[in-house]
């Protein structure tokens, strides 16, 4: 088989994995090696679906012994199968990396023979890349659930970031759709990686040249929309993953209809829940950067995110007693709660108000999105001139602000002349 065909098959097999980033680690290039990494990560291109391409995202092989219903590479699916040899993949990575096509390698694999053998093949590839090709760029590797802990450890010493996909948001869904994978098999490596990272950080404090285990942390992804879990369930799970497992990122992947299994939504006229995924990411940002907790964003009375508005606006509307916030007095946490103020503009407000009191005109210069923030702010005790609005009107205006950005067409106005029934 030609390299081109293999690349097509194995990139096609990997493309549904969203947990693919190049961030979290600064490493400068050293003489004799090729490659460096950036803390902020770097996007090298954007594919036609608008997602960032930063790593060469491929599977080592798509021969799989498992039969997970939601997965394109399941055993029962009739697909062309292929496998890279370690050297082929190294040559390809280096060729792409030198031309600045990619930031590094994202290596995942279907389970060939058994998890241990699969991990060994991945280790062999990464070892070759790091030691023989002297590759210093970013490597993101998937830990294979069920592999021996020693093998996972070796994988973590070669890679920068590890991830274990928890795949589906609840144990019931997982046992229904992925009978070969247990919840325990997923959380065991996650726990091991967490402990490995903590231990490695401790060692590095004592010995400067101690080996670094997954220095860019770990991440995970779950599929949204294939199973009936609510957004509240997903967000609390996310929160606990951040709290307990110190994950860097949790990715959500809207389910794409890749299977005709009766356990999954029927592929005919199934719309992947892209807007829901978008709202979940917005909520995820609130958890990671805005000091929100999952239970603040959603509760029993409201189990799902509002598709019409971002979660921060929703929170603000439910807590109108918290507002208005006085720009010249409020602390950082309070500023972050205001819709239209982000992390950057909140920091800028803190800096700028040391030079003098801020006005609405000045806030615009600081990058505050006033069309959203104006309803929730006062500057030196004054609201924007001419702004008087009821609670109901506020809701309508905020929804109207987002309406043009939403891809879906607005509901049509009913007409008297349409035929009924």
């Amino acid at each position, binding site marked *: 088989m030609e390299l081109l065909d293999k*690349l097509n098959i194995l990139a096609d097999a990997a493309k549904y994995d969203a947990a693919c980033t190049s961030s979290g680690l600064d490493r400068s290039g050293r003489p*004799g090696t090729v490659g460096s990494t950036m803390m902020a990560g770097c996007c*090298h291109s954007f*594919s036609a679906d*608008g997602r960032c391409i930063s790593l060469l995202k491929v599977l080592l092989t798509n021969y799989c012994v498992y039969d997970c219903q939601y997965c394109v590479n399941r055993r029962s699916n009739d697909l062309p199968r292929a496998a890279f040899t370690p050297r082929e993949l190294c040559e*390809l990575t280096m060729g792409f990396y*030198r031309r*600045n096509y990619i930031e590094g390698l994202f290596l995942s694999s279907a389970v060939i023979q058994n998890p241990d053998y699969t991990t060994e093949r991945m280790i062999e590839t990464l070892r070759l890349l790091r030691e023989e090709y002297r590759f210093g760029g970013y490597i993101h590797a998937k830990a294979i659930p069920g592999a021996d802990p020693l093998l996972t450890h070796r994988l973590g010493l070669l890679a920068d970031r590890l991830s274990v996909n928890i795949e589906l948001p609840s144990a019931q869904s997982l046992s229904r759709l992925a009978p070969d994978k247990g919840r325990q098999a997923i959380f065991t490596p996650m726990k091991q990686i967490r402990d490995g990272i903590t231990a490695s950080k401790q060692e590095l404090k004592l010995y400067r040249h101690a080996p670094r285990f997954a220095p860019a942390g770990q991440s995970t992804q779950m599929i949204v929309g294939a199973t009936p879990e609510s957004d509240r369930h997903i967000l609390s799970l996310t929160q606990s993953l951040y709290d307990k497992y110190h994950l860097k990122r949790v990715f959500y992947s809207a389910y794409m209809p890749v299977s005709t299994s009766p356990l999954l939504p029927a592929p005919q006229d199934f719309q992947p829940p892209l807007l829901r995924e978008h709202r979940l990411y917005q909520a995820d940002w609130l958890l990671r950067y805005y000091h929100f907790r999952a239970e603040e964003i959603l509760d029993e009375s409201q189990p799902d995110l509002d598709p019409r508005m971002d979660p921060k606006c929703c929170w603000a509307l439910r807590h109108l007693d918290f507002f208005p916030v006085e720009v010249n007095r409020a602390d950082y946490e309070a500023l972050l709660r205001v819709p239209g103020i982000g992390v950057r503009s909140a920091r800028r407000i803190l800096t700028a108000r040391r030079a003098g009191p801020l006005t609405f005109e000045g806030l615009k210069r600081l990058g505050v999105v006033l069309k959203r923030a104006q309803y929730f702010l006062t500057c030196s005790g004054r609201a924007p001139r001419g702004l008087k609005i009821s609670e109901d009107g506020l809701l309508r205006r905020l929804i109207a602000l987002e309406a043009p950005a939403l*891809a879906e067409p607005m509901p049509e106005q009913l007409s008297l002349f349409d035929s009924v029934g």
Partner: protein
Amino acid sequence: MPWTQVCCCYDGTFPGFLTCVFESYVNKEEPVEFRTPDDPCCSLYPQRTILTHENHAMRVYRSLEGKLGRVGRDLFVRGFLTCLPEKELWLWRFLRMGYSQGPSFLRNLTDPTVDRVRRAVQHLNGEAHQYKGFVRFSDYHGILAGEIEPKNRVLPLLRPHFRGRYPGENLILHDRTHREALFSRPEQWAILPVEDVQLGPPDEAELAYRKLWRSFYDTIAIQGRYNPKYRMGHMPKRYWAMMTEFQKDWDTALPEISNPSCPKKQPLV
């Protein structure tokens, strides 16, 4: 007594600009226009032709850190690389504020001058960061060559990144907008003005990698999520012309003629 308003003609370089600052303070004249040799029109203000003076420029440069602080100095130096219209004038005002108020003037983010300069530098930094990803190199017999068309002069910002990333490589990065190029070898580098860089035809191996990359790029997109608006938001079309994944025609044509195994395009009859 207010300073006389003049028009400064200088050579367009950063030391030249610093010399203008020096001369303005010595002669107590306030520049209200800056002209470089490229600007055609003349001015209604009295013209002063400033010859670049290394020592005077150095004296101004050394004062920057003390008067503007380290952050302010970096903003000032980077500000000169931006595409801000009348950047010299904005930087002159920026410097005047710094000299009169000290480094704390930077806190006043709502001030029009600070805001303009900060925004321009933010644009420069953003563009440089994007180019770190969007530059495409081609391997010409062991030399990596790439071309860009940036709005700002990003080469000085890209230099440490690419030299750090490829420590053993010979690099050429051509900035078509500003007609300059970064030449880098493991032991030395230079950013030099160039008239035109003609890269010869790529060889077989290079074309093979381009083909692989284009194929990867097309494969990795999920059809069910096709979203061209979102892509354009992150990667505006002005970058596309220089990127391998969008250059469908001009370099794949070559191997298909030399390699008879590839099926030729059927003429439309």
